[in-house]
Each structure stands twice: as structure tokens, then as C-alpha cells.
């Protein structure tokens, strides 16, 4: 019951690839494979050859033979099955089924063969599984990398915060001192430049890195803007009166300043607004910003079914400068018939219903501009969607508490619909008052126990196609099953039910349309399993 080797040889007898699964000497395997093409007769209707010691089970593939060398007692039925699996795998990995093609992908084939046969014994795997194994896409590794990244970011943040604190205190300390700074700067800048190069690079680096990350990115952002926001103020400070003494913390700012003076573009300083708020959305930088936001209010019943499903969406507009305020907005909706749109009373309803263009009734009036109190700007359009269709629910939670002796085992599983990739998913399960954290037996993702509120938080950073479903199991002392409800869920997503998109901005006064940015997000407002 042992496969000695799996090989691909050409019809002329050249050994292209061979993987052995038991110990055998090179001369032996080469001999066996060299003898094979001579033993294969033509015109036979069976595909095995037996010699004194071994059996070859083979399959011709175009100009090649795929072949298993087995011992003679080997189970032919199983070997044929193995051979069939391998024969399906070879074309998967090798584009052209000739010598060249096989040679090119020899190592990939060896990896695939390894998945099908373990120490000569057949593994029960399908072609899809082998492909998955060979791709080695691991969800856990991704998570691990994210966690590592966030840890790095966190430490960086701490470092920055500390740095800025020291910075601040130094500035405070030095504020009283007077002195000519400009002369000092002019004579020392060159030297300072070179000596602090690395410092500046590390700080800018983290600024970029954080932008591409989600999850912790908002926090990082706010910190980075905080420190950077200080930069101009610090830079303006010296002329007011900075002493000859050059504090260590000032060097950074000075350095930035001097860089700027030399015409270097310092990217993070482009952000004009020192947004100190810890709002979810970073402050807008484009002249026109359009925000599509949908809020979800969902109540799911614990034994299946939808209690309430309500989506409320808004499209809001924010314009930074007065010059850009005479515009109209062309949008495109996903065509979901169950969504009803309502425009702002000042909007030209006809224009919207006919051409999907949002413009003011009075074309001469500009849109309100500037930083309004509301972070998201002026609302242009609202919509609503209600449904009882369970298929629309982006994330269903299934919670099974079961009492066993003095313990309650709770297994929770989620099932996410393929419509959305959900981010920062947090499932909060109320627990009975506990003395210590519950024992989590198994989890896809991470967990945290909030002892003050008796809540177990199960967080999954990202739910995408790799983990459309997942589960967690934990144990608590015996408790009534109703105590684990209502479970509330938080998450966000970057696409929406309405699929509303801003296609274009039409300037009413001619000229080029101003640049605009668009933000789309779906957030949960109240998402519960009761």
C-alpha cells in the first residue's frame, strides 16, 4: 500500500520530474524509471506494467507519461485513484503538457505531489484542496501580520506622543527666552540637515504607513496630524523670540522648517486643517468632499429571522472654498428598487429625478462652504431602505448556549453575506457577572473581556472571502441562556446597500471641475441579536 515514487517521464524515456516517498537510492529510482519506457508496450488497453519487483501504474498525457511506481502488493484501486488525482493536478500547474512545460513547473509539481501522497500513503484530498494548500494563503498569517503592524504602529504612536510632549514642554520652557534665531538657522541649517535626516524619515514613514492601514489607522492619523499640526506653530515661535540655546526637541521642527525653506515638499504638512478631533473620518483635504454614509439598524431574532432591518443613508457635501461652490453633482445609484430617495428641500427635484443630478433650485446660489459644524457637511440626499429579507442581512450571528453540568458552553458563529467586506467587526456578548474572564475554547479572531460591563467582545479585523464564516466557543459557569442576549454587533464597510456613487461634478460657471473626493461607508448604528 505504498507509492514509491510519482514521476513524469517523456515518451522517449527522459525523466522530467520524480518525487520519491520512501528511501531509495538514486541509482535505483533512475534505473526503474529508465526501464519503464521500454516496458510499456503499445496497443495495450491497460495502463500498468509489472516487473519482478515493482508495478508501474501510468497514464499517458500527450507526449508524457505520468507514472506511479508502487510495490506489487499495492492496492491497485487506491493507486488508480491517486493517479487520477495527480493527472488532474498536472495540467493545473503546467500550462503546456510537454517536456518544456513540465521542466518549467517541476518544483510546483513536486509540491503538489507532496500534498497528495504522504510518506507513500495516499491523502484524501481534492484538486481544489491541493491548490489551496500550495497557495499557502493563511488567514491567520494575515491576522498575525495585522496585529504585528498595529503593535508597531502603537509603539510608534507612543514614541511620537512622548516626543511631542517633550517637545511641547521644551517650547513652553523656552518661550520666554529671546534671541536671534534666524542668524543661527542660516548658519547651522546645513549641518542640522544632515544630522537629522534619519529622524525625519522615520516620522514621515509612519505617516504613510498608517494611511494604508485600517482599524488602528484613525488613531494613528489623529496623532500624526497632531504632531504635524504643531509644526507651523512651532516654526513661527522662534522669530517671536527664541534664545541662542537650541533645544533638542526643537531640532525636528527646525529641520522641517529649513527643509521647507529649501523648497522640499513635506507631504504630511499638506493637511491644512489641524483636526484635533478624534472623529472617524479624517478631515477633508480636497476642495469638494462628498460623503455617502449608511447607517444600519438591525434587530435579528435569536432563533433566526429578521426583526427589524432598516438602512438610512445620507449623501452630504462639503466645500472648502467659496469659488468652488457653484456646482452640481451627478450621481449614480445602484438601482436597488427598494430604496426611496429624498432630496433636500432646496434641491431641484426634477433635475434629480430626470438626470440624477443634484443642484440647487436657484442656480445662482452657491452651496454653503467652509467648515460647518457638522463634520460631514451639508446633506443633499437621504434615503431609506427597509426589508425583512434575511438575505439582505450582512452579518448573521448564531448563538448556542448549552448547559452541561455546572458549566455553560456557548458557541457563537457568524455568517457574513458575500455583499460586503466587513471591517472592525466587534460582537459584544453580555455575560453573567463573573469573577474571572470566561474560558475561550476556540476562536476565529480575538477576544477581550470587559469585566466592568460583563461583556465579552469578539473582534475580527476583517471579514472577507477568506472567512465568510467563523466561530467562537467559550465556557462560563452555568447560566440562563437568555443572559447572553441581546448581542450587539459593530462593524463598518466601504460599500453600501444603495451603491450610490458620485460620478462627476459639473461646475455651473464653466472652467474645470474642481477636484473632489468621495467617501463611502456603511456603519452600524444599532445592530442587535435579541
Amino acid at each position: 500500500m505504498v507509492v514509491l515514487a510519482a514521476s513524469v517521464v517523456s515518451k522517449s524515456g527522459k525523466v522530467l520530474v520524480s518525487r520519491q516517498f520512501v528511501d531509495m537510492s538514486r541509482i535505483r529510482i533512475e534505473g526503474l524509471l529508465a526501464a519503464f519506457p521500454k516496458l510499456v508496450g503499445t496497443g495495450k488497453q491497460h495502463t500498468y506494467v509489472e516487473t519482478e519487483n515493482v508495478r508501474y501504474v501510468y497514464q499517458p498525457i500527450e507526449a508524457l507519461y505520468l507514472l506511479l511506481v508502487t510495490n506489487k502488493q499495492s492496492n491497485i484501486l487506491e493507486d488508480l485513484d491517486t493517479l487520477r488525482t495527480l493527472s488532474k493536478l498536472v495540467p493545473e500547474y503546467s500550462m503546456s503538457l510537454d517536456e518544456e512545460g513540465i521542466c518549467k513547473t517541476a518544483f510546483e509539481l513536486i509540491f503538489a505531489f507532496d500534498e497528495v501522497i504522504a510518506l507513500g500513503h495516499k491523502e484524501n484530498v481534492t484538486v481544489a484542496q491541493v491548490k489551496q494548500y500550495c497557495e499557502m494563503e493563511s488567514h491567520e498569517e494575515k491576522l498575525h501580520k495585522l496585529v504585528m503592524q498595529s503593535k508597531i504602529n502603537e509603539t510608534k504612536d507612543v514614541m511620537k506622543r512622548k516626543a511631542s510632549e517633550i517637545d511641547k514642554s521644551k517650547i513652553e520652557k523656552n518661550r520666554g527666552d529671546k534671541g536671534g534665531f534666524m542668524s543661527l538657522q542660516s548658519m547651522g541649517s546645513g549641518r542640522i540637515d544632515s544630522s537629522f535626516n534619519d529622524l525625519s524619515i522615520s516620522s514621515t514613514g509612519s505617516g504613510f504607513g498608517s494611511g494604508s492601514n485600517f482599524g488602528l489607522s484613525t488613531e494613528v492619523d489623529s496623532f500624526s496630524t497632531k504632531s504635524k499640526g504643531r509644526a507651523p506653530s512651532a516654526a513661527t515661535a522662534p522669530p517671536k523670540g527664541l534664545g541662542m540655546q537650541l533645544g533638542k526637541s526643537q531640532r525636528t521642527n527646525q529641520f522641517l522648517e529649513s527643509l521647507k525653506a529649501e523648497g522640499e515638499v513635506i507631504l504630511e504638512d499638506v493637511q491644512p486643517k489641524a483636526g484635533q478631533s478624534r472623529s472617524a473620518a479624517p478631515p477633508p483635504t480636497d476642495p469638494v468632499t462628498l460623503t455617502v454614509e449608511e447607517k444600519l439598524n438591525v434587530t435579528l431574532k435569536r432563533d433566526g429571522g429578521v426583526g427589524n432591518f432598516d438602512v438610512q443613508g445620507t449623501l452630504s457635501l462639503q466645500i472648502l472654498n467659496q469659488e468652488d461652490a457653484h456646482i452640481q453633482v451627478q450621481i449614480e445609484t445602484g438601482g436597488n428598487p427598494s430604496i426611496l430617495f429624498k432630496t433636500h428641500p432646496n434641491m431641484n427635484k426634477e433635475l434629480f429625478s430626470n438626470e440624477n443630478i443634484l443642484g440647487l433650485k436657484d442656480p445662482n446660489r452657491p452651496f454653503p462652504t467652509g467648515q460647518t459644524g457638522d463634520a460631514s457637511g451639508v446633506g443633499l440626499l437621504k434615503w431609506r431602505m427597509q426589508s425583512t429579507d434575511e438575505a439582505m442581512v450582512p452579518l448573521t450571528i448564531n448563538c448556542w448556549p448549552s448547559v452541561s453540568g455546572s458549566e455553560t458552553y456557548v458557541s457563537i458563529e457568524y455568517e457574513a453575506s458575500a455583499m460586503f467586506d466587513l471591517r472592525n467587526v466587534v460582537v459584544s456578548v453580555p455575560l453573567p457577572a463573573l469573577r474571572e474572564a470566561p474560558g475561550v475554547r476556540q476562536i476565529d479572531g480575538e477576544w477581550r473581556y470587559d469585566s466592568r460591563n460583563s461583556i465579552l467582545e469578539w473582534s475580527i479585523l476583517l471579514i472577507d472571502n477568506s472567512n465568510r464564516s467563523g466561530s467562537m466557543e467559550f465556557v462560563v459557569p452555568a447560566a440562563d441562556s437568555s443572559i447572553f442576549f441581546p448581542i450587539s454587533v459593530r462593524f463598518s464597510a466601504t460599500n453600501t446597500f444603495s451603491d450610490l456613487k458620485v460620478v462627476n461634478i459639473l461646475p455651473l460657471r464653466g472652467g474645470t471641475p474642481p477636484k473632489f473626493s468621495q467617501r463611502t461607508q456603511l456603519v452600524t448604528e444599532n445592530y442587535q441579536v435579541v
Partner: protein
Amino acid sequence: MERTEKSCTLLVHFDKGTPALANEIKEALEGNDIEVKIEALKKAIMLLLNNETIPQLFITIIRYVLPSEDHTIQKLLLLYLEIIEKTDSKGKVLPEMILICQNLRNNLQHPNEFIRGVTLRFLCRLNETEIVEPLLPSILTNLEHRHPFVRRNAVLAVMSVYRLPQGEQLLDNAPEIVEKFLSTEQDPSSKRNAFLMLFTCAQDRAVNYLFTHIDRINDWGEQLQMVVLELIRKVCRANKGEKGKYIKIIISLLNAPSTAVVYECAGTLVSLSSAPTAIRAAANTYCQLLLSQSDNNVKLIVLDRLNELRALHREIMIEMVMDVLRALSSPNPDIRRKTLDIVLDLITPRNVDEVVLTLKKEVVKTQGSEHEKNGEYRQMLVQAIHTCAIKFPEVASTVVHLLMDFLGDTNVASAIDVVVFVREIIETNPKLRVSIITRLLDTFYQIRASRVCSCALWIIGEYCLSLSEVESGIATIKQCLGDLPFFTATEEGEGQESSKTSNPVTVSSTTVSSRRPVVLADGTYATQSAALETAMSPPTFVQGSLASIGNLRSLILSGDFFLGAVVACTLTKLVLRLEEVQPSKVEVNKATTQALLIMVSMLQLGQSSAIPHPIDNDSHDRIVLCIRLLCNTGDEVRKIWLQSCRESFVKMLADKQLRETEEKKAEAQISNAQPDDLIDFYHLKSRKGMSQLELEDEVQDDLKRATGEFTKDGDDAFKLNRVLQLTGFSDPVYAEAYVTVHHYDIVLDVTVINRTKETLQNLCLELATMGDLKLVERPQNYTLAPESSKQIKANIKVSSTETGVIFGNIVYEASSNVLDRTVIVLNDIHIDIMDYISPASCADVAFRTMWAEFEWENKVAVNTIIQDEKEFLNHIMKSTNMKCLTPTSALEGDCGFLAANLYAKSIFGEDALVNLSVEKQADGKLSGYIRIRSKTQGIALSLGDKITLKQKGGA
């Protein structure tokens, strides 16, 4: 024999045309581009596989490749580590290997489950305890990993570690751990691997687990069930008394849904028990598989198993005959042949009727659809029925008439089989004679093939006994010949004219096909006459004047005068017999004259120019003889014609039967050991590290044989004949080689002795080969102390039977003068073709088709001092290791001529054919030719050389 060769885990074709430079690889490995790195690593592995050790590359890889995050690189790295030499020449682990340990441990704790898995798999192939030891804790933690992929490989890693020489000390609690693991594991594959581990490492635990979970065995995965069966086999072999406990498990597994398990079950049953019920169950299972599996491979192998059962448990298999016979429904001729072979051996008086009935039905089925394979199948069936009828003459009556329908078959081979069958039956079954003759005379006109015709004519001539039979026999022949004469003068003119037009066609076709010499059935070497071959093609030009041309007429008109001679003989016999049974002399004379007329017109036809070839001398003489006989009969001649023929036929049949029974006897004897044979104690054989159990296990043996670990030890007495002296006694280095020829490889064991008083440095045995030989390794350098000796092993791969020559020299530096290299040229080593050739046998027909097909012929003129033909044949057989296909009865007697066919097969599956034709000259010397034919030039040439060398004989 202890194995010193390293095991080889992978082979990749490496094109030497594009050599990759070590520098380029190094540069690429140091770079940052992942794709380039992967390519370079692949190249490095291929170079390593090709024996290009690049030691400096290892450090580069440690520095630049080890830290890579890329998965493909990591996997390739594992392959690289797998094949790299990890120990020094003394078997100690190289110190730099410690560098990879850390990396392996990181991999085992990697968040990516697949990295963990492949690393664990790599550990399974690792033999160095020193490397494995620090990784043990990581391996064990992986047993609890969430992902089954990791667990399944972790268990295998544990098993491999435990099986290492010091494994039991390293992981003394491994069986406990795995047992615990097994009890909680859900993944079928991990479960299987865990059970496998217990099975190989702690058998009693495995048995224990099996019995605690015995009720759920049917729900287990297919793979696990297979291992269970393997376990049962092993346990029962060790402890026969416990069989009873397991039989039940096997019986319950016989109903498993997986056919592989069912097949395995049957095999296990057979190996465990010889109780009729068990064997019956196994045979039943095989029969079911035979019917349910559509794959030809499966059917053939199941038939092999059934055949084994047939040999061991004949009584039970006899009951199964009808089930086995159902496999005939498969269209594959190999399967059908195998099935028939099994069935024919199982025929008893009780089941013969049933079997023959089925065979008859099959024959009738072949009539329906004209499929090209049908002819072959019909022939097979006819032969099978023939065998049945010989064994149990009573069934002959039921089949012979059916078979006679096929005398006119377009498939000549099957028609010949039928007629031969009829010939034999009519002799052995006198009761059937009358009905067969009547039937034969009725259907004679349907026969198309000349060979069938001549055989049928012989039957008519021999077995028409009564007056009416003889008369209708003569009438039938006359009718089939049509009106006489065969051609008229005018026809001759026309014929000549038409012959002019069509002659080129016929001639060209015959010259193409027939000018090749063939080997006749009696082993004589002949140039085939064109007439025999064209006989089968429809007559092209001379058409009979009547609409109903008889079959004999058309055959004879096409130039088949051999048939003409047969007709003449048959008529002569019939007339002679008529004289005995016909009271009226007038009638006899009338018949005689008619016969004479026919013969004369045949002669006339033969000499006319209307026929492309004139009549050959043999046939002419024969017909003339018949004419003379009819004109002048005598008692003596009559006796020869009417009795001796029959007698010699009876003798031939008896001889054939005798030969068959003798063959069978010989076969039966081979399987039994002689009372004074040596008994082989496996345990006493020189094999290390194997428990007694393993040695007794035939499955294990099978595996060992397959991996080449198990080689038949040759006769020690001949071993020393193989020692070759390579250098002279006065050379500073003396070398001799002991040549061992294994299946596909040659091992040279070279002993090198330093005969000087100096230390020889960088001594290297350089070998080069010619022919289909290939050196496996590159030579290594040695340092040889004064007057010390060294054993050097060299492996050489053989890929065909062509004679190979190994050249070589020994190169060394004397310690006093480093730059001065000395070269000693070695004697050539010739590899003997005889090591690869083994006697084999094949059917006469197959031999002759091969003879016609094969392209290479080597003709060697006989030149020998041996005076006796048979002695010469024996000498050739012995020196070429070939088998004589010509039956000994045909070689008997002393006539000064000898012709024989010899056959052998090489282990590469090549056929070697030899025909020997010698004649004793007047001066007592033998003369003649030996012809060798083979598909490849190599065999023909080297066998020819061998014969030229050896044929002298005497010495």
C-alpha cells in the same frame, strides 16, 4: 548487504546545455527580487541534484534566503535542505547545520499553518537526530494546532522521529502522546496518520485502540480502514492464535463502501485463513469487483489475484468458475485471455457442460457483429473449447458442429484453429466421425483460406471410409475444382494478354511483401515463395468460365500449387479407398481416370504461361507421384497411404498430450521445494535493524524488493570470477575491481592499494563509459597512506543492453611533489550482455511475427570445432543464456541437419531472437549460419559478438 548509498528524494530534469554559474546564482540569491531569487534557488537545487556541490552557496542561502518571508522560497529552501549533504564523511552532522535549526523552529511556530505543515513534512525526511532534537517541543505543540493540515503532518513527523535509530530515547512517550491525540482527533487524515504511527511504533496500543472502537469501524474513513487491515495482517502473522478476533472485523469491512477497502479485505482474508468460507468470501469479493469495476487495470489485477487463489485453493475456485467467466463481457482481449486461462484450469466433469455452454454462447455472439477484434476473440474461444473437448471428449459432440460453421471464417487464424480442432476430434472421438465428415463435405465449399483447405482435404482423405462418403468426397472436390480443364488455349491467349496488364501489379506486390526470408515452423530458414502469400489475395486474372467457381479452383488458379498437390494426394487416397469399398470395378476405374484428369490439368496449368509463377518442383513431383501411383497401385504403397498417415497423426497427438502432461508435471514440481533444499532463515540473513516480524512479513519484503534493498544473493562460488585486475602488479597503485551487476545498475567495488612508501594525495578514480552506461556520481579524492588500501565504490547506471565498456584511470599526487600528478591507465572493464539476458519463451507464431518485424539482423557464420549438431546447439544455448523454442522431439534423430529457434528477453523488455541452422559437412565439420534479430541494434550486435567469441567451443 548494507546500504551505503544515500537515499534520493527527488529528481528533476536538468538541461546541461545551459549551465548556471555559481556566481550568477549567488548574485541572484543576494538580490531582493523575489522572482529572481526563486529561479536562482531552483537552479541551485538542480545543480545540487546534478552532483555539482557548491559549498559556498550554503552560507549565501543561510544569509539571504533564510530570512525571506515568501512562501515559495521557504518551500524551495526546505527542498534544498532535504537534498543537501548534512553529514561529513564520518557521518557526523556538519556544524553549520545548527544554523538551519533556528529557522526550522521559527517555521514550526509560524502563524501560517501551511508553513508549519510543510516544515513538519520536511522533518519526516530528516535522518539527523542532532538537527531534530532541538525541534521536538515545537513538533509536539503542533499536535494541538487548530488546523488539521498541521496536525496531520505533525503526527507523521512524530512517527519519523520515533523511528530514527535513537528515536525511542528522544521521544520515549511518543506512543502515549499519539494515543491521546488519536482519541480526540476528528480529522480523518490526521487520525489515519496517528493510527499509522501507533501501528508502526507501538502495535499493542494500536490493537487496543482498534478494539475499544470496534463498533464504529464502519464509519471510519477509507484510509484508516486500510491501515486497520494492514495492522490485522501484521498482528495475525505474528500471533496466529488471535486470528479469530479479527476475522469479524474483516467480514464487516467487506461491506465497506470503498472498493479499495473491499479489495484489501479480500487480500487480508486470503492471507489470514485458508478456511473454505473465508476463501469463498474473498473469491466472491474479487468476482464482484471484477464485474463492478470498469477499469481494465483493476480487472487484470483482480484476475491475477483470482489466479493465485486458483493455484492455492482449487476446490473453492471450481465453484466460482461461472462467476469468473462473466468477465468475458469485457471487450479487452487481455482480460478475456486471462479469464479463459483461469477458467480452463478449473474445469471439472461437473462444470464442463456449463462452461462450454457459455463459451458457445460467446462464440455465437461474435458472429453477430463484425468487429475487428471479434476474430481474435473467436480464435481464443475456439482454442478454449478445443482444450475443454480434449479434456472431456464428451462435450465435443455439442460444440463441433457449431464450430464447423466457422471454417469459412474470414479470420484465417480462427478458421485454422477450428480445422485443427476438428482434425483432433475426429480422431479421438470415433463416434462423431460420420457426422463430422458429412458436415465437412457440406460446408467445404465455404472455406476460403488455403491452409484451412489443405487441412480439411486431409481430413476428407483420411476419414471418408464408407462408400457413400468416399463418393461424395470425390464429388465435392470435383465440384469445388469446377469444370476442366483449368484453361483453354483461347483462354491462354486472353490470360496472357491480361496477365501482361496485371502482372506488374502482382509482381510488385509480391516482391515487396515476400522477398524476406522467414523462419518456418520447424525452425528452418527459408525464402518464402510468393505463391503462399498471394494465395490469400483473390485471384486477379484467370477467372473460371463458370459462374459458380469453386473455392479450390480460384485458389489453384491464383498459383497455389501446394494446395494442388494436396488435392492430388487427397484424390489418390480417396480412389485407393474406393477400390476397397466399391465392388464395381467400373466405378473405380471411372473415378481413377477422373482423378488423373484433374492432376494432369493441374500440371498443365502449372506449366502454362497463364500463371505468374510456374509450378514449384515439390508440388510437381508430388502430383506426378500421385499419377504414377494411381496408374500402378501396389499393396505396400496402399498401406503407406491408407494407414501410415493416420498412424503418424495418432502418434503426434499422443506426443502432444504427453508433452503437455509433462510440462504440467514439471510446473507442479517447481513449486515444491526439494526435500534436500536449503532452508532460508530470514533472521539469519545479513540485514540490520529489522525486527523478526518485519522479516516475516511478505508485504514488507515486497516493499524492500521494490526499493532495491533486497537483492538475491548470488552464488558465492562465482563471485570471485568477477574480480578484474585493473592495474599491473608493478604499478605504484594496484587496483582491482569486483563487479556486481544489479538490475539496472552496476556497482564497481574497487580496491586500491598504495604500493609505495609515500603518502599519495588527491588520489582519484576517474571513470569514463562507452555505450548506454552512465556514471552516477562524481569521483571523490582520497589520501592514501603508504602501503595502505582503500575501497572505492562506483555506481554505474545501465539503460539498455548494449555492450558497455568502462575506461578509467587513477590519478594521484605524491606527497613530496604536490604539483606532479601521476596517471595510471586502467584495464578496460567490459560489461557482459549476458547479465541482462534471461531465457524466455514465446509462442511460435509470436516468434515468427517478431522475426518478420525486427529490423536488425546479424548473421554469424558457424565456425566451430564441435562436431555434433546438438552439442553445438547446447553450447550456444549455454553461452548465450537463451532458450530453445523448437521442441526437443523435432530435434531428435540424426540427419545431418539442425534448425532451431532460440529466444531470450532482456530485463529492459527487449526481445532477442536467434535462429540456428547448421549442416554437417562431409568432412565432419559443421557449417551454417546463426542469425540474430532484434528490434535494437545493440542486442543484435552484442549478441553476435558474444556468439562469435564463444562459438568455437571446446575450451
